[in-house]
């Protein structure tokens, strides 16, 4: 595959050079020239006003028999026997893919004492559950989980594999895809079926959320992706549903595991699992001092949400880095995001702009955060937040 400029047709307007996300097009003697940085994304093709750029597709040698690979798999990540929400969200979305492909939906559960999760997966639509148990899976380890996943894939050959884009999911996903030599699309925010090919169309943000890219994996199986938590809805479980549980023996030997978990340091008392939080209340430099973050924590606790922070507040030492939202911290997509005393620097926005509803409270009416907020209040956070806490408590008490 390659992107080619027809030099005779090129009028030297430079539109393609400006549109290339990778800066891979340069103008030489008034003609567009594609350089080594080209990733064949095709963004330039549509921008050319005279149709001088084409993307050619060459047929690859088929490495595997794709027809051997069937079914949509969802990895149910669990911690201490509790499934993370993202697995159930993906079962719902995986069901849609499985129906469109007319194939079955299966869940993969790996852990120690986790068989109680099989009925939960079936109640959420899995036709089948692959269950691998053993003390070697008590805590996540790259080695044990990769060996197990690669073995499951090589034995049962799924066509599609969905994983949550959690810290462990993004540790495991590339390791597994590399071992079975297939493509992996990271951190997706949308899934669908590409009409022309019937392949899974994986859509994800790139360039700090400035562009979206839809990726296909045409010739390798399984088609793999990690998907951000909170993007898809969970379904209510239906315990009348039935499914098959396939117990698979672990092939992991003690010597295979090259890391050892010594200790888990839980962070403070405030919730910091921002990736899975439905509501996040974030504070920035506008909170004034670390003591005022108690207001952020109180509002979060009243709403049952997690506490976030801008980089400025982390750099000032007011909050731990685990709470930081933004390009150099965490990327979140909750249902509701409160930005309190946060100006809305592009680095912060890149980490939270996919939130469903954004609420901004800032004393500066010109703050850029208001441009992306569904609701904005110009005011002193130290006055507005306590009043808001009181109002919400009133409403909660009345219901």
């Amino acid at each position: 595959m390659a992107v080619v400029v027809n030099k005779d047709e090129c009028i030297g307007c430079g539109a393609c050079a400006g549109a290339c996300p990778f800066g891979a097009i340069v103008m030489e003697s008034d003609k567009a020239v594609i350089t080594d940085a080209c990733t064949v994304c095709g963004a330039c093709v549509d921008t050319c006003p005279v149709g001088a750029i084409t993307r050619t597709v060459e047929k690859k040698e088929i490495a595997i028999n794709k027809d051997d690979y069937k079914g949509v798999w969802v990895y149910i990540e669990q911690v201490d026997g509790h499934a993370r929400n993202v697995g159930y969200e993906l079962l719902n979305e995986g069901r849609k893919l499985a129906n469109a492909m007319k194939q079955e939906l299966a869940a993969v559960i790996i852990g120690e004492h986790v068989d109680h999760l099989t009925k939960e997966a079936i109640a959420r639509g899995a036709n089948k559950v692959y269950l691998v148990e053993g003390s070697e899976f008590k805590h996540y380890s790259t080695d044990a989980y990769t060996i197990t996943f690669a073995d499951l894939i090589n034995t049962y050959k799924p066509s599609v594999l969905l994983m949550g884009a959690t810290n462990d999911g993004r540790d495991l996903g590339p390791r597994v895809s590399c071992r079975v030599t297939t493509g992996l699309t990271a951190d997706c925010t949308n899934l669908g079926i590409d009409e022309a090919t019937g392949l899974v169309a994986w859509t994800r943000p790139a360039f700090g959320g400035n562009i979206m890219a839809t990726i296909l994996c045409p010739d390798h199986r399984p088609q793999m992706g990690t998907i951000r938590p909170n993007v898809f809805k969970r379904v209510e479980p239906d315990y009348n549903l039935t499914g098959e549980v396939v117990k698979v023996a672990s092939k992991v030997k003690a010597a295979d595991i090259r890391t050892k978990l010594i200790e888990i340091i839980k962070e403070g008392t405030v919730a910091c699992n921002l990736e899975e939080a439905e509501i996040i209340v974030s504070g920035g430099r506008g909170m004034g001092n670390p003591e005022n973050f108690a207001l952020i924590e109180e509002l979060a606790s009243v709403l049952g949400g997690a506490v976030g922070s801008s980089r400025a507040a982390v750099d000032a030492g007011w909050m731990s880095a685990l709470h930081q939202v933004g390009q150099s911290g965490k990327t979140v997509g909750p249902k509701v995001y409160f930005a309190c005393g946060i100006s809305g620097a592009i680095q912060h926005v890149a980490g939270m702009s996919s939130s469903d509803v954004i609420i901004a409270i800032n004393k500066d009416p010109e703050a850029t955060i208001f441009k992306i907020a569904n609701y904005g209040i110009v005011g002193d956070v130290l006055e507005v937040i306590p009043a808001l806490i009181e109002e919400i408590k009133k409403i909660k008490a009345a219901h």
Partner: protein
Amino acid sequence: MEIVVCIKQVPDTTEVRIDPVTNTLIRQGVPSIVNPFDKNALEAALQLKTKYGGKVTVLSMGPPQAKEALKECLAMGADEAILMSDRAFGGSDTLATSHTLAAGIKKIGKVDIIICGKQAIDGDTAQVGPEIAEHLDITQVTYVAKIESVEGNTIRVQREHEEGYEVIDAQLPILLTVVKSINEPRTATVKGVMKANRKEITTWTVDDIVVNASAIGLKGSPTQVRRIFSPEQRVQGEMIQADSAREAAATLASRLLDAKII
């Protein structure tokens, strides 16, 4: 201790803007920088060298202009820089990129620790690091927020997790990916820049490494970009007008109630 730091030259995505008329990316005038997380990786490597001795090599795959990024790493204190650059590497996805970088690391020889940034700010995939480790058949710890110690063949690190930190002991050789909070990368001194200017950056082409031609570049890339488009732009919603903070809060609370948020 032999340390390799993998770096990527990226456009400064915080400088990227969307053309409001054509709704496409405006890349003109956007500076190329060393991926910020990779600077944290280099800083971690330099600190390890200070503590335990050894050598820090920076390795990158990219077009010839990526030498600029490597030069900056030399100025920060890296001992040696290698650029893997060849048209044959063009169009690589993460699998082909990691395959190429792993071949480069094999050519470097005995390596104890490979450090990468947790992800690049242009692609944001966080995949190349773990995939390099897989190609080299060594273990990995991702999202490292602290390197506590290296004793003999064992390294102790803290790994960032959703709920806190995991303290992990691991065997060398190992690949680590690091988060921003691990350190504050040093800035190059004038002396460092002058020293870097005197250093040669080694360039390797496809002929310098041992790889299967079908495993690199476009041919070795299982994923293909089907389409690139601009995300829907958020539009400004309601600015709540009120005479007092109390009134504004009450209005907001009623909006949240209407929207079934509370």
